[in-house]
């Protein structure tokens, strides 16, 4: 009966610290199996569970233990940052009270008293399990949110903590969202915060996974806008990569303009391919090839430099091998021209080919 005299606050802190320790222990576990995590503590604590007069709190904790994580003297609890598959809980906790840390044993008992540990562990497990669920896209958002929240940690803003439990997403992940900028509750305002929280949370949070997402200050915190925001951040990240590829896109800021440039570029590349393949086909024309019709050619002749239409046109393949200096300069039939051997050797020679011609062909370069 150690924790009879512990206040609600201390119990919460203790519980949270326990959760944190759990998470830290399981940090590097690749398989997040909530059942495993559940089994251990429940064995330990099962016998300790007994009724508590603070039913209201207990119910709260059962359903939303996270509520207390941010609203008391633990203001530094940011969201969990999902870093790929690594789960790094925010360790920057200012517990403030040294007594909390000094009584590890009592934590367990407290935890058993205040809620079913199973739930608590499941929560912790869920938090970790979240990582294995495919919210990889959220990591940017969450990281950013976490950073921005950490920056505001030292604000002395004291606004009420609002906890909004979001609806289920398509893949049945429930998001519990806290707005950390408002999470500076202390002492007496705790209970009122609790009640307000109670009003805002959804009634039933069955054993599903949780994604802890931090909303930025002044932004909507429901799941739809959060996932939408995560998606947008992903897209803008990728657009930045594209910006480096497409020439002349450094100045363009918006997505629409970028898309326009990308479209133009891809279209120009594709038309270049068409043009070049036509040119190559023209080069390949042999003098005795009378199959070309008079109508087709004039359309293309204008675009080709006059030199290409010289009558002493070798086969294109043969011409290429000549450039690679592999095959003696005789015009062989195209079927016989490319031997497998040539191909193998061509690779060795291609690199010097590229290097040698890079200077010459710089002016051909497309920019």
């Amino acid at each position, binding site marked *: 009966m150690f924790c009879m005299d512990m206040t609600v606050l201390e119990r919460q802190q203790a519980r949270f610290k326990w959760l944190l320790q759990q998470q830290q222990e399981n940090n590097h576990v690749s398989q997040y199996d909530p059942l495993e995590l559940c089994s251990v503590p429940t064995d330990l604590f099962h016998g300790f569970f007994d009724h508590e007069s603070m039913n209201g709190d207990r119910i709260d904790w059962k359903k939303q233990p996270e509520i207390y994580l941010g609203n008391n003297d633990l203001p530094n609890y940011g969201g969990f940052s999902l870093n790929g598959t690594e789960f790094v809980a925010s360790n920057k906790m200012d517990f403030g009270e040294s007594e909390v840390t000094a009584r590890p044993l009592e934590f367990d008992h407290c935890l058993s008293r205040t809620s079913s540990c199973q739930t608590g562990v499941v929560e912790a497990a869920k938090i970790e399990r979240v990582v294995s669920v495919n919210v990889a896209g959220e990591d940017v958002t969450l990281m950013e949110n976490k950073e921005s929240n950490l920056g505001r940690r030292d604000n002395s803003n004291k606004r009420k903590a609002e906890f909004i439990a979001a609806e289920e997403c398509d893949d049945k992940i429930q998001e519990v969202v806290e707005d950390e900028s408002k999470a500076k509750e202390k002492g007496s305002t705790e209970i009122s915060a609790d009640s307000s929280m109670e009003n805002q949370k959804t009634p039933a949070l069955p054993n599903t996974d949780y994604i802890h997402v931090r909303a930025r200050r002044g932004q909507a915190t429901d799941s739809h806008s959060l996932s939408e925001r995560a*998606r947008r951040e*992903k*897209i803008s990240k*990728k657009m930045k990569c*594209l910006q480096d*590829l497409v020439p002349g896109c450094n100045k363009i800021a*918006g*997505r*629409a303009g970028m*898309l*326009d440039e*990308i*479209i133009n*570029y*891809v279209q120009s*590349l594709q038309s*270049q*391919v068409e043009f*070049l*393949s*036509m040119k*190559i*086909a*023209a*080069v*390949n*024309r*042999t003098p005795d*090839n009378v*199959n*070309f019709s008079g109508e*087709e*050619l004039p359309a*293309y002749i204008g675009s080709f430099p006059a*030199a*290409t239409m*010289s009558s002493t046109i*070798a*086969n*294109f*393949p043969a*011409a*290429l091998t*000549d*450039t690679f200096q592999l095959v003696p300069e005789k015009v062989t*039939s*195209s*079927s016989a021209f*490319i031997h497998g051997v040539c*191909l193998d050797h*061509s*690779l060795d020679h*291609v*690199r010097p*080919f*590229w290097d040698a*011609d890079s200077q*010459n062909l710089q002016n*051909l370069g*497309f920019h």
Partner: protein
Amino acid sequence: MRAPRSVLKQQFLKKWMMGLQVFGSAKQSMSILERKKAIKLSADIALASTRAGRTCWSRAIIADASKDDDGKVLVQHLLSPESERLKKASTGLAMENKRVRCKKILKRSCCIKRVRKGASKVVLAKSISKRIVKRRTQVLKSLVPGGEFMDDISLIEETLDYMVSLRAQVDVMRRSLAKATEVVNGK
């Protein structure tokens, strides 16, 4: 960053030459347009084979090419070791695409149009820009092979990869053209 790009180019060139070889003796009898088509086709399939199976656009190109005889031959020739796997992948892709298309049609039919009330300027501007972006993504989807079946995020990734490959293709083709004309003029 010369090395990876030139590796890609070498691979492409090799496969392209292999593809051209397939046309071999028929080259003499082809019209210029047919020749051009053959060249372009083998270039495209060669390009797709450098990314064999890993990207959506390459699978789309191979799937499209396998529909007619010429393409089939080329695909078999160029991708002989992996052709079986890729054929399955591309047929699977066709099925998946149909499914995606049906889902999208369903989604659109069920989508409720939101009524725009007396919107402020900001909101209006936002909706306009959203429409523009949407329209342009549609255009981009039509450009990138196999793009109609991708969502926004993977579309951008595919575009990225496709652009890199296209650039390499253009580079190789231009250089080989230059060299060929050089040789031709030299003679």
